[in-house]
C-alpha cells in the first residue's frame, strides 16, 4: 500500500487490513512515527502536537497481528503516565518526569494492539480550552494555523485531524475531549464517569476526569473505547460496564427522540455554529428522528458550579507537586521558601489561578457557601438530565459555542475562555457520556454536534452518531498535512 493509501485508512480499517495480513509488520507505525516526528522536528513551522515521539517501533508493536487493534499506533495525551516516557501534564513542574508505571488505559490499549506512538500537547494539568496554557507552547489548529485546536486535549485532536496519528487518547473534565474534537473536526467521546480507569492519569478534578478517544470517525471511536472500558481494582470509582462496546452500523434514526435544551442551544452560541447545528437537526429528522424541545433548567448554572468544584479538587490534587520527591525543585532558605519558589516557578498562571480559586472555595467558613452549594447544583443538574431522558433518548447541542478562535484571542480574559465549556460542562457534572462529531463548517472551520445519553448508553450513542455521521458527510481529509 502506498503511504497515501495508508494515510487514508481509518484506524478500524487499518486494524482490519492488519488482521487480513495486508499491512506489513511495523509499516503503519513507521509511517505515523515519521509524520509525528516531522511535526516535532519542524518546531515553529509545525503544529506542535507532540511533547514526545517514539524513536523506535516498540518491540512487538507491529507484531500485534492477532491483537484486535492490529498494531495501529496511538497518540496519548501527555498527562497519562507512561513508563520511562516523559509524562508532564503540560507543566514545567513535571518537565522531564519519567513515571515508573503506565496508566491502566494506555497499558490495556497497548496489550490490545495499539502501541504508544507519541505523547500529545495539552493545557497545563488539563486546565484550558486552547492548549495555550501548555508549558511547551500552544498547538495549532491544522484547519488554520493562526487558530487554536481547542483544549485541553488540543494536541490529540490536532494530531488526529492532521493525520499525524491514526487515533488518540484525551481526557475530558469539563469538555477537554469534546471541545477540541469540535474545533479540529474529529470525533471525541467523554465516556460515562467510571467507565474507564483513571489510574495513571495525572489528576485535574478527580470526580470529573474521564479518559476517552479522539478519532477520525465514530467506528474508530467505538473500537478504541471497547478496549479501554472496564472495572480496574486500582480505581475505586471505576465500574464494570453493563455490556460490551460494539462497533456501530446504524444508518437511520427511526424511532429516536432527540431533545434540544433551549438553555444550551440558543443564547451565547455563535450564529454560524447555530446555523450548522440547526441544519444538522434537519438531517436528523430526514433520518427519521423526532426532535423535541426539552429543558435543563439548572444547566445555565453548570459553569459556575464547575468552576468551584473542579478548582477545589485541583487545589488538593496539585498539592503533591511540592519539590520534595520528583519534578521541579527550586531551593530556598527553608522548607516554606522551597515550596513557594518551586510552585511559583513550576506552575503557569491559569493553574495558579485555579489553585487559588479552589483553596478559597474550600476554606473554613466558605465551604458551605461555595463547595457545598456547588455540589447541590451538581445534583440538580443530574436530576435535570434524568428527567429529560424520560422524555427523549438523547440530548443534542452544539459542542462549543464558537468555531476555533485565534491564538491569543481569549488568553487575557479567563471568563471568555471558560465559556468554551458552556455546552459540555453539564454532562460532565452529571457523569453521563457525550460524543462530539463534526457536522459541518462555519467560516471554513469545523463545527461540532454533541449527543449526550444516559449513563452507560455508549453503544446507543455510537449507533446514533454513526447514522448522523453518514448523513453529514463531513470531509476531514482537507486538514491533513
Amino acid at each position: 500500500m502506498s503511504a497515501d493509501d495508508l494515510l487514508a485508512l481509518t484506524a478500524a480499517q487499518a486494524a482490519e487490513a492488519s488482521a487480513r495480513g495486508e499491512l506489513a509488520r511495523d509499516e503503519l507505525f513507521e509511517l505515523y512515527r515519521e509524520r509525528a516526528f516531522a511535526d516535532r522536528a519542524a518546531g515553529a513551522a509545525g503544529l506542535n502536537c507532540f511533547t514526545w515521539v517514539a524513536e523506535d517501533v516498540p518491540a512487538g508493536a507491529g507484531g500485534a497481528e492477532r491483537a484486535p487493534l492490529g498494531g495501529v499506533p496511538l497518540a496519548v495525551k501527555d498527562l497519562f503516565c507512561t513508563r520511562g516516557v516523559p509524562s508532564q501534564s503540560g507543566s514545567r513542574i513535571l518537565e522531564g518526569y519519567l513515571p515508573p508505571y503506565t496508566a491502566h488505559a494506555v497499558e490495556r490499549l497497548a496489550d490490545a494492539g495499539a502501541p504508544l506512538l507519541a505523547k500529545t500537547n495539552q493545557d497545563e494539568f488539563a486546565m484550558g480550552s486552547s492548549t495555550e496554557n501548555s508549558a511547551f507552547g500552544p498547538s495549532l489548529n491544522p484547519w488554520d494555523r493562526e487558530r487554536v485546536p481547542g483544549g485541553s486535549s488540543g494536541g490529540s485532536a490536532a494530531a488526529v485531524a492532521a493525520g499525524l496519528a491514526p487515533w488518540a487518547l484525551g481526557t475530558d473534565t469539563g469538555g477537554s475531549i469534546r471541545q477540541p474534537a469540535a474545533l479540529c473536526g474529529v470525533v471525541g467521546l467523554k465516556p460515562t464517569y467510571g467507565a474507564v480507569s483513571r489510574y495513571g492519569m495525572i489528576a485535574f478534578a478527580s470526580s470529573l476526569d474521564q479518559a476517552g478517544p479522539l478519532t477520525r470517525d465514530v467506528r474508530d471511536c467505538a473500537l478504541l473505547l471497547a478496549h479501554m472500558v472496564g472495572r480496574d481494582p486500582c480505581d475505586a470509582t471505576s465500574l464494570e460496564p453493563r455490556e460490551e462496546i460494539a462497533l456501530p452500523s446504524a444508518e437511520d434514526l427511526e424511532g429516536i427522540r432527540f431533545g434540544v435544551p433551549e438553555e444550551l442551544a440558543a443564547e451565547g452560541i455563535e450564529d454560524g455554529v447555530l446555523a450548522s447545528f440547526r441544519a444538522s437537526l434537519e438531517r436528523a429528522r430526514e433520518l427519521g428522528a423526532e426532535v423535541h424541545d426539552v429543558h435543563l433548567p439548572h444547566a445555565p448554572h453548570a459553569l459556575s458550579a464547575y468552576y468551584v468544584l473542579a478548582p477545589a479538587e485541583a487545589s488538593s490534587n496539585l498539592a503533591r507537586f511540592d519539590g520534595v520527591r520528583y519534578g521541579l525543585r527550586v531551593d530556598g532558605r527553608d522548607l516554606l521558601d522551597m515550596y513557594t519558589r518551586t510552585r511559583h516557578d513550576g506552575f503557569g498562571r491559569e493553574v495558579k489561578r485555579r489553585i487559588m480559586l479552589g483553596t478559597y472555595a474550600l476554606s473554613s467558613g466558605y465551604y458551605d457557601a461555595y463547595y457545598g452549594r456547588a455540589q447541590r447544583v451538581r445534583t440538580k443538574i443530574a436530576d435535570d438530565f434524568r428527567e429529560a431522558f424520560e422524555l427523549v433518548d438523547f440530548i443534542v447541542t452544539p459542542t462549543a459555542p464558537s468555531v476555533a478562535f485565534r491564538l491569543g484571542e481569549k488568553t487575557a480574559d479567563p471568563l471568555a475562555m471558560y465559556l468554551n465549556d458552556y455546552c459540555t460542562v453539564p454532562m460532565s457534572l452529571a457523569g453521563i457520556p457525550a460524543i462530539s462529531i463534526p457536522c459541518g463548517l462555519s467560516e471554513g472551520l469545523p463545527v461540532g454536534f454533541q449527543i449526550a445519553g444516559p449513563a452507560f448508553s455508549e453503544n446507543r450513542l455510537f449507533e446514533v452518531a454513526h447514522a448522523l455521521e453518514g448523513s453529514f458527510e463531513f470531509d476531514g481529509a482537507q486538514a491533513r498535512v
Partner: protein
Amino acid sequence: MSDSRADGLEPVIGLEIHVQLRTRTKMFCGCELSFGEPPNVHTCAVCLGLPGSLPVANAGAVHYGLMIGLALECELAPRSIFHRKNYFYPDLPKGYQISQYDEPLCRGGRLGEVRIHRVHLEEDAAKLVHVGASGRIHGSDVSVVDFNRGGTPLAEIVTEPDLRSPEQASEWLKLLRTTLRALGVSDVNMEEGSLRCDANISLRPAGSDAFGTKTELKNMNSFRFIERGIRAEIERQRAVIGGGGVLEQETLHFDPASGTITSLRSKEEAHDYRYFPEPDLLPVAIDEEMIERARAALPELPAARAQRLELTLGLSAESARLLAFRAELGDFFEAALAGDADPAPPPQALANWITGELVSRLDDGADPADSKVQARALAELVGIASAGGVSVGAARQVLDRLVAQGGSDPQAIIDAEGLAAIGGGDELEAIVRAALAANADAAERVRGGNAKAIGPIIGHVMRETKGRADGAEVTRLVHEQLGI
C-alpha cells in the same frame, strides 16, 4: 479521682489516641507494613503519592475499625466517608492525608468510666528523620523521609473529656491498650509508635459544667510521659490562672527529656485543613454481614471477663478487675485454675497470690507466662497452703524458689526444705506452752483482755517453727492454753 486542689480548679482531660492497625497491607495500597526494615523498601506509586496513582481502601482495616467500634460499644455508621485533610509537609506525599471527618466509621461509645466520642480510620504519615543536632526539623542540617510507615492504617479514637487526673488518664489508657491487644488489631506499643496519644487539657472550677480554655499536648510516647506531661501541663495552667493570666488555646509539645512544654502553634496559626470528601474513594458502606463478621471476631473483652470472673468464680470485684484488665495475669490465672492441681486452689486465694505475691516478685508489667513459675505449680502451692499443708510464710518461701528456679512440684520443695506446716498436734502445743512460759507478762496481759499483747508470743512460736506454724492455729492454741 479528681485532682482538684486548694485553688479549687479541676483538670478536664480528653484523649486522642492513634492506633496503628496490624493489617497485612497499608490503608490505601498493597504495600506490606514495615517492622524495622531499611528505609523506603515498602513503597509504591500510591503511598509515594506519585502523579496519577489512586487509593483503594483496605477492607481489612475497615474490619478492624468495626471490631474496635464494637468493643467500645460505639454506634457503627452504615455509611461513612473519607475526607482529604490538606496541608503541606514533607512526610505527607500527596499534600493531604486521607482521613475521616464529619461522617466517621464509629460514633459514641464507652470504655470503663470514659465515654468515646468517635473512632475513625485514616492513613499514617511517613517518618521524617532529622539529621543534625536538635532532632527536630528546626535546626537540623538535613531531613530525610522514610516512606515505609507512610500509609499505615490508623484508627483514631477520641474520648469525651471525662478524665480528671494524669493518673486516671494513664490508667484508662492502659485499659484501652489491653482491650486493643485482646482484639488483636494492633501491637499497641507506645515506644514503637503503634499506640500514640495526645491529650486535650483544661482546668475549671471543681463541680462546674463549663469548660476552660484547652490546650492540646502532643508527643507523649510512654505511659510515664503521659502522666508527667499532663501533670506538667496542669501545673503550667494552674500557674497561668493563679498568676491572673489568660490561657491561650494552642498546640503544645512535651519534651520528655527536660520535662518542658513548648508551643507548636497558637490558635491563630492553626491549620485550615480544607477538608472535603475524597473524590477518589467511594463511601464506606457497612452491611449486617460485615458487622456480624466483626462481632464474630471479637474475643472476650476485659470488662466482660471481669464480670465473668466475678460471677462464675466468685472473685471479688477488685480481683476480677485486676485480672481482666491485665490480660496476661488473667490468662495466667485461668491457666492455673485449669491445670487440675491437687489440691485445687480456691479461686479467690489463687487470684490473691497472683495479683499480690507473684506480681510483686516480677518486673513491673511483666507477663508471668514469661517467668519460670509454672501456672500449675503455683496453683498447687496455693492449694496446699489453703488446705493448711503449709503456712503462708512458708508458702512465700516456696514461691521464692519457684520464681528463682522454676519447678513443677511445690510439695517436693516443701518436703525437701522441711517447710511442712506444724499441725495442731503435740509438737505445736509444746512449743506454744514454752512460748507462754517465756513471755509470762504478755500472757498475763492477754488473759487480762489485751488482744494485741499476743504478738510477742506468736513471734516466739514462729521463730521456733521457722514460720511453718499457721498463725490462726497458734492463736487458737494460745487462747486454749490461757483458758480464754
